[in-house]
């Protein structure tokens, strides 16, 4: 569709150096790069508003051989800034997009021009402003009017300079969704500059990363949005993760300022055990990964509660129940991880391990009434009954994502070992149980101090977590069994 061959362009001196690449028909092509890397210059070079050396070829025709009107029929531009000096109406503004198709001396609009203007106003949702003056519209509305103007040119290629600049997130999404649709459905080729790496990642088929006027990377988002490229080109610390709900890379910056909150110290002193609950309050939010009822998954939380419920407790909406409970105790629900258990919470067992460069606190409450052997679990009903081993692991250290997963394994293995060592049986199969049907676990890290890359069984973290969980689980199960024997 468009071929760029050895392109040099600039103002007083060259800003772009020897760029060569091509963009396919129907492709959504993102241009990234820090300020001053030549993104806007590239766009201007492509649409012929800057003198260039090298070639820009559209569908086999070099752009330098095309007249201004021919270029405007192939390629439309949505600039970043708009000059609005007179109170032109929206309709007039959109109609001007038909200029490249004008013929004759007096240049009247044809029926076709009106039809297309109508169509693109509909597409961009500006029809209702048609008789209003541009000056009376907001920045976002104007942006859509100029998009309509560009679309009225009926171009094969649309060049956009930060198209979502003045738009709030819902219009950003709307606009990019529309562009993506047109590229998928009508084969519109979209070349757009992005400052927002994540939008670029989610919407573009390929990305071009510019660095000081040269191509640093040109590939699919997964390849281009890579920590090495980004931190070098942007000269800033940046993290790349998987997008939580979309199969594209997701970048984020981490602020480097220091806040006034105290350091998060992991200590058994912050633990509070009462008749009704186990409660831990951290001095600052911890990064958590858990299977809790309230606020499960990854997140940052500073209050943790394990509420005792009755054996016969049945609830349609356990999370809702925990929210009410949390509020009753005066916890802020968005900062709280909540679990529940039928075991006596006063029997909670705590193990605190102090290593040279990090500490681990493990808190376990255990009830083995619904013990299950994971190998024979098909005998059990689907319904979850409380009576549970709940394990909390607080770590004062900087855990990698890998360490979270490995700690989870280590802690689970230690728990299974404790359950089997205590000779708990699955009542239905009669075999040795591996846990209960509703066990829950939390791994929480302060994300400061020592970097803990690994949490496997023989890593330094695993060596602390494994025995601590084993010891705490065993102790908690023992207390549970004692209480049962006493017949309470």
């Amino acid at each position, binding site marked *: 569709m468009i071929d760029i061959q050895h392109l040099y362009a600039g103002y007083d001196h060259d800003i772009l150096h020897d760029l060569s690449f091509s963009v396919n028909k129907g492709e959504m092509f993102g241009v990234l790069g820090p300020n001053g890397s030549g993104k806007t210059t590239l766009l201007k070079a492509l649409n012929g508003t800057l003198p260039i050396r090298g070639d820009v070829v559209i569908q086999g025709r070099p752009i330098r051989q095309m007249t201004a009107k021919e*270029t405007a029929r192939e390629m439309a531009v949505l*600039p970043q800034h708009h000059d609005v000096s007179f109170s*032109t109406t929206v309709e007039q503004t959109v109609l*001007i*997009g038909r200029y490249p198709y004008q013929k004759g*001396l*007096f240049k009247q609009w044809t029926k076709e021009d009106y039809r297309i203007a*109508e169509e693109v106003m509909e597409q961009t949702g500006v029809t209702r402003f048609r008789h209003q*003056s541009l000056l009376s519209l*907001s920045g976002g509305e104007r942006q859509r009017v100029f998009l309509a103007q560009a679309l009225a040119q009926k171009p094969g290629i649309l060049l956009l300079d930060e198209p979502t600049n003045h738009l709030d997130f819902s219009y950003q999404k709307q606009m990019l969704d529309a562009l993506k649709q047109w590229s998928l459905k009508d084969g519109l080729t979209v070349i757009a500059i992005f400052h927002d790496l994540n939008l670029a990642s989610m919407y573009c088929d390929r990305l071009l990363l510019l660095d000081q006027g040269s191509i640093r990377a040109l590939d699919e988002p997964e390849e281009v949005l890579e920590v090495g490229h980004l931190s070098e080109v942007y000269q800033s610390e940046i993290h790349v993760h998987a997008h939580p709900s979309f199969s594209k890379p997701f970048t984020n910056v981490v602020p480097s300022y220091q806040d006034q909150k105290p350091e998060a110290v992991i200590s058994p002193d912050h633990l509070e055990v009462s008749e009704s609950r186990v409660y831990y309050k951290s001095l600052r939010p911890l990064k958590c990964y858990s299977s809790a009822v309230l606020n499960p998954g990854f997140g940052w939380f500073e209050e943790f509660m394990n509420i005792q419920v009755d054996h016969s407790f049945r609830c349609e909406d356990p999370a809702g129940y925990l929210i009410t409970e949390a509020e009753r105790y005066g916890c802020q629900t968005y900062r709280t991880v909540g679990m529940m258990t039928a075991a006596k919470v006063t029997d909670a067992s705590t193990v605190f391990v102090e290593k040279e460069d990090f500490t681990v606190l493990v808190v376990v409450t255990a009830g083995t009434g619904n013990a299950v052997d994971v190998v024979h679990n098909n005998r059990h009903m689907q319904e979850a009954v409380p009576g549970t081993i709940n394990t909390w692991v607080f770590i004062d250290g900087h855990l990698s994502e890998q360490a979270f997963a490995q700690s989870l394994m280590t802690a689970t293995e230690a728990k299974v070992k404790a359950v089997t060592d205590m000779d708990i049986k699955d009542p239905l199969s009669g075999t040795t149980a591996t846990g209960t049907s509703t066990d829950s676990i939390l791994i929480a890290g302060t994300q400061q101090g020592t970097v803990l890359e690994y949490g496997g069984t023989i890593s330094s973290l695993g060596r602390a977590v494994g025995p601590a969980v084993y010891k705490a689980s065993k102790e908690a199960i023992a207390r549970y069994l004692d209480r049962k024997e006493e017949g309470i």
Partner: protein
Amino acid sequence: MQKPYIQTFLANKATHYTGSVLLLVFSVFLGTSLGSVSISFEAIARIISGQLLPFLHMSEGTDPTLQAIILQIRLPRVVLAGLVGGALAISGAAFQGLLKNPLADPYTLGVSSGASVGAVAVLFLGITLPFAGSFTLPVVSIAAAICTIFIVVGFARLVDRSMSMTTIILTGIIFSSFLGSFISLMISLTGEELRQIINWLLGSVGNRGWDYVHLMLPFFVIGVLLLMFTGQELNAMTFGEERAKQLGVHVERQKYMILSAASILTGAAVAVSGTIGFVGLVIPHICRKIFGSDHRHLIPLCVLNGSAFLILADLLARTIVSPSELPIGVVTALIGAPMFAVILIRRRKGGRSS
């Protein structure tokens, strides 16, 4: 679906043109009718049609004194005022559209001063260009106007690439006063041509006669025709030169043509009537408000209404303190300067007040 709208749109345009033409005709009649001797519209109609369509013998039986007053004194004055007003108004509209600047007009841009320097120089030196003959004054004046606008725009671009509203106006004012000092210099050095120069400088369309109309007419026709065909390009250029280029407008060529055409009109107007300020500011501004900013219509409508405006302004100038006359520039400035202030204040208050 869209048809009714287009129709009302066209109907609207038709009323715009009809209204403007009627206003112009009315102004011509009023301007010819009023004065030391009042003449009825009917007599004017008879005498004019008698001149234009002699075979109808419409003017037979009319008073020959009246005929002389109308044909030799009032009508040339009215026609000249009309031509000058129309020329100044559309050159203002063109400058504004091209420079995206609602405060631009031949006067604020310094083009009028440039043309004045040219004209005064001709009077001062008493030269006659061999090829131009009696057209020496307007030709030199136009050439000076064209030079001035290119220098002003070039200088403004040098100062500020984006050519903001204030930069252009400031540049225009600086050049105006710079050129004004040249005029003062020539006046102070002048001897016997003083009266002629001062007379010309005061700015008037009175006592000029048909000669001046003939002097002005060819340039008026050329300028107006050139601008009439650039309406769509001007529309595109109100979004900025770069956007216009992206829309396929041959920006450089159009820009030179529009600036030249507007300067030809200004130069010719200044050559016959001296500097008359603010017509190019007031008329396009009012026309935009009433008729919308589509330059394809704005340009012809500015011609019609600019003509009518200056005819009426001239009428006011010569009747208000009768039997003596005010310079017409005083009348236009009294209307125009406050308008300039109003536009400036509105602009400064931000975009969202339309």
